[in-house]
Structures are given as C-alpha cells and as structure tokens.
C-alpha cells in the first residue's frame, strides 16, 4: 500500500504554517500605517479648536466647569506650558497625522508593543502587548501615560493609566491625574475608527466617550516637532494667567453667538440626552423649541 503523499501534505500544511506564525497575542488585523484625521465629525473641536466656554454634551461636574471658567488661553504662553503636548486623553482629537506601527521581538517575532506618533508636539505613545504589569501609582506620571493593549476579535483594546493632570478639551476642561482611559482601535479597510472612554472620579460624573476617524495615507508623512520654550510675554515672576472665580462670560458669549440656552452650553451629562430638550422646554419653552428645530436668529 503506497503512501498518499497528497493527504499527508494537506494534513501537515496547517501545522507547518502554524509553526511559522509568531507566538504570543496575534494581531487580528494590521494597524501599521500612516493615517490622516478625517474631520467630518466634531470638526470645530478637532480643527481650529473649540470655543471657550463650550461644554455641551460633556459629562462634567461643577468642579470641572469651574476649571473651564477659570481657564484663560494666555496660560499657554507661559514658558512652562509652551511645549506641553496633548495628553493621551486628547491627542487623537487634535490635529496632525498619526503613525501606528508594531514592534516585534526580533528573535521570537512576538508582538511586544505598538508605537504611535502624532505630529503635533510629537506625541509618542507605547502600547505594551506583552501583558507586563502597570507601574505602581508612585511611578512618574506622563502626558501619554502607561498603556497596555490586547485584542478582542478584530479590535485592539487599550487601557491607559499613570497620566499627568491633563484635559479633555482644548478650552480648559481639566482632567485629574486620577483619570484612566480605555480605547478601541477598529480598522475597516482604509478607515481607522478610534473610540475612547475616559473616567475621572474628580471631574467627570460618568465615563466620557468620543469617536474619531482616520484614513490611511498612500505615502508616509510625519514631520519632526522641535520645541524650545521662550519668554514671549514678559510678566511678573510667578504670574499665572486665569479668569476670575465664577466668570461665566465665555459660556454666555458662546450661548449668545449660537443662540443656545446657557444651561445647554454649560454641559453636564444630562445635556447629552434627548430628554434634556424636554427639560429645557419645561423651563424656557420658547428657546427650547427654537433649539429643537435647529433654528437660529
């Protein structure tokens, strides 16, 4: 009886192929590439940046709102603030191309980490895939924090802790160093969807969830971002630009410009819900109706 070599080959082929595959957590899809942000969603925030005093739909508490009211854009002109990059909790919302690439152990070809670079202020992140432990609370907190990733089907899920005090929006909505973030990277062909959820026991009443879209680029495009701070506006030593306590001018100005109720502009978890329009209608019937109809002056 002769050997059926074809059958043996068919049976052995998957095993041979499996032996050639790298061990460790398998990347379900290939995320490597250069991406350009697609600004169709939340363009005013992701492009030129949000207006001062615009907090609509964000689950902020009173303390966070006060931090926003107190914030003054001139703060960014003091030398110690000029070269601060967006933290991980905001970087994907900002401008600039995104580069994602995997790093494998050259010997074992195990996936060690993903690295990520965003051009503005050279935001560089490492997403560890080797299940190393999170650093303890006493370890240095950083703008990008410490991130660990794992695959859930075709979705890369990333947990980030050990963050510096940061922000969730470029208009002074602060985030404490107690915050942590969960992200999901989902790729559909040329489109990368990024979903992130931030929890902060100090400044958020419930998790804040946002999505952003990126499109793969045909050519690599990533510039350097050197930054050296300098005194641009001479001020007395120790000056910290800020608005007066309970200064609501920014909120009121934004509300007036877009003919929106101040209560909605001031944010809070309830302002993200459709029922909020009913509440407004009960409080201020005429204005709420106008908002519901998308009407402007």
């Amino acid at each position, binding site marked *: 009886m002769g050997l059926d070599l074809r059958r043996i080959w068919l049976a052995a082929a998957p095993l041979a192929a499996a032996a050639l595959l790298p061990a460790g957590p398998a990347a379900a899809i290939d995320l490597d590439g250069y991406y350009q942000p697609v600004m169709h969603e939340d363009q005013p925030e992701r492009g030129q940046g949000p207006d001062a005093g615009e907090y609509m739909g964000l689950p902020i508490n009173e303390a966070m709102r006060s931090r926003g009211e107190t914030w003054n854009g001139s703060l960014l002109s003091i030398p110690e603030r000029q070269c601060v*990059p967006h933290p991980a909790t905001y970087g994907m919302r900002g401008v600039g191309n995104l580069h994602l690439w995997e790093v494998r152990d050259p010997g074992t070809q195990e996936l060690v980490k993903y690295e990520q670079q965003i051009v503005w*202020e050279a935001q560089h992140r490492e997403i560890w895939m080797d299940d190393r432990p999170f650093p303890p609370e006493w370890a240095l907190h950083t703008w990008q924090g410490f991130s660990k990733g794992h695959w859930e089907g075709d979705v890369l899920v990333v947990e980030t802790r050990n963050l510096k005090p940061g922000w969730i929006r470029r208009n002074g909505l602060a985030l404490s160093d107690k915050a942590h973030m969960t992200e999901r990277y989902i790729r559909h062909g040329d489109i990368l969807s990024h979903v992130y959820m931030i929890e902060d026991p100090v400044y958020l009443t419930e998790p804040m969830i946002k999505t952003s879209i990126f499109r793969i680029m045909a050519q690599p495009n990533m510039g350097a971002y050197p930054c050296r701070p300098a005194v641009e506006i001479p001020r007395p030593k120790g000056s910290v630009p800020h608005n007066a306590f309970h200064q609501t001018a920014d909120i009121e100005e934004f509300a007036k410009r877009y003919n929106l109720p101040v209560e909605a502009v001031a944010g809070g978890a309830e302002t993200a819900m459709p029922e909020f329009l009913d509440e407004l209608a009960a409080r201020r019937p005429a204005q709420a109706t106008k908002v519901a109809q998308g009407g402007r002056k």
Partner: protein
Amino acid sequence: MKSSLLAAVAALALAGTAAAQPSRQPALEDQLAYAAQAPKAGTFQLIPLRVLQEVRGQEGMITIQNGIYVLQGPDGNVTVQIGPEGSVVIDSARKAQAAELVAALKALVGPHTIRFVFTTNGDPERAEAAYDVRKSGKAIFGGNVAGQASDLAGEAVHMSHQAVLDRLSGIGKDKAVDETEWPKETYAEEDYDFHFNDEGVQFFHAPAAHTDGDSVVFFRRSDVVVAGDLWDTGAYPRIDTAHGGTVQGVLDGLNHVVELTIPGNKQEGGTLVVPGRGRPGDEAEVVEYRDMVTIIRDRIKDMADKGMTLDQIKAAKPSFDYDGRYGSTTGPWTTDMFISAVYEGVKPARPQRRRAAR
C-alpha cells in the same frame, strides 16, 4: 556587609542596560524598569529615582554613579543620596516610624554610611525622627580623634537652616524638642552648598513658606530637587502660620523649584522633584500645583479686598474645583485650615490707629 536590598538593586542596575544608558525618558524608564521589583519594607515604599551604578573591581563593588532614592512613608518622604563617600538623608518622617525608617535606611545604604541628615523645616516631629537617623550614621571626622569628640563620635551630622534651630531651641520661648535633637550645623544665609559624592549639593532657604525655616535641596549632578513641604501631591500645602509660614512664601518657594528644574523633551522628565508627601514628579507637575495655589490665593485675596470676612470667604468655597483632588474635611490638614492660612497672608492690613494727641 552589603544589604540584600542594595545588592538586588545593584544587580538589577547591572543587568539592565536600560538604566545604564541614556534614553529619551531616563527617569520614566528607570522607574518602570524597577516598578515590579522595588520592595516595600513595612511602612516605607522604596522609589528609585536615579539608580546607583556599581561595577565589580578587584577589591569588590565600586560606585561609579550616585543613586537617589525616596523612601515614601505615610507621614512624609525621605530622600537618600548614596555614593562612594557615604549617604545623605533629607528629612526623616516622624518619631513613630523612626525605628522602621532606620532599619529601611540601613538596608538601603548598606556600606555607604549615613554622613549627613538634613531637615527641610522646623516641624518638631521631623527633628525627633532625625535624631534616630543621625545616631545610625557616622560623620566623616579625623581618624581616632573622632572618638574623643563626643559631639561627633558615632553619628551623622544633623543640618538645617538656622531658623529651624531657633525654633526647636525655643529662643525666647520654651524649646520645642530636647537639646539632643537639635541640628548641630546650620546655615543662616539665603543658601549653602557643599560637594559630596562627586556632585554639588545646594540648599536654598525658602523663607516664610511652610514655616520660617524651610529649605529646598538640589542634587545638581543627579538632577533631583527635594521640595520638602512646599509640595504635597495629595493635599493643599501645609502653611504653619503660627511658625512663620505664609502662602506667598510657599508660592515663592514653588516658583524657585520651577526655576531650578529643566524639563526633558516635551516638558517631561528631566529634573525630578521629590515632594514632602506623595509621589515624585517633574517640573510640569510642580507647575500644575503652583498654578493651583496661585489661582486659589488670587481668589481669596480678591474676596478679602472686597471686604469679605473669613467666614464669608469659606462659605464661597474658593477652592471647590480643586477640593476633589487636594481637599480634606478630616485629618491634620483640612481645606478649611488651608483657606484660613491663605487668608491670613492676604487679608488687608488693619489701618493704624492714630494716638490721640495729649
């Protein structure tokens, strides 16, 4: 005999090239490299900021670069510089933990005998604990003459700013601690320095800050600043107005710390700063804290200038948007006490009464 703790740390330092070679974020990588291994000895958590670099020579281990470590305890941080000439200890937690601290220090410094103990402010409990630490060390003093000089025999030199000694010795008042616990060497000027373990160590007086005797310590080569009780990563700054503390002094001190620090790329890492309590950080985190104190000071001053009383100011909750991070309604330092202390420093001066002409 080298302690097992120090041997473990040194072995890790030699085994891993990450800590030995310059990197983009050396501070972070140092910390992360040792995160899982850093031991907790009872109350105190060991935090390696700059890891001791040693190589084995013909006569045993040779120190080639100093290490800066923090022993993080519930009542304050203890910073330790370890090098070939011995060790320098900055602050000493509290008397209740002194025995445990001494044991942890012995394990940490191993053969690098404690030569100096420095106290960054005049809190009596710090001086009491410093007594135990200095007794566990030995000053560098001339050979067998040391045995004849009772003051220096078999103990480290306890140093501070002169205002600390004035307070502890109770000039014009009752002394705060026993004479044996007073610092033995002081500086009375704005600053003081010496060279130890192949690096410059600078001491800067931060007048009228937490108390009237605060010091900021700068290890120049190691690039580490010890801010003492000017910075607490978990609470508002403790301002001891009864002993010369003021909010403006705290802010001046924090601004000086910001001047001393040089951050790394993208305002991260670089010079590291050790707070009096809490976790070490870099310039950006000190800036965040400085900004918070400045903003609250400005609010309270604005209210005081408008004629509001302290009770009215407290009712207005001028710190409420930071209370979730730094505030407390219980314990030795509450939000209420902080607001009172700030108000004390910014309230309008009472108009001088004219004496009636006779």
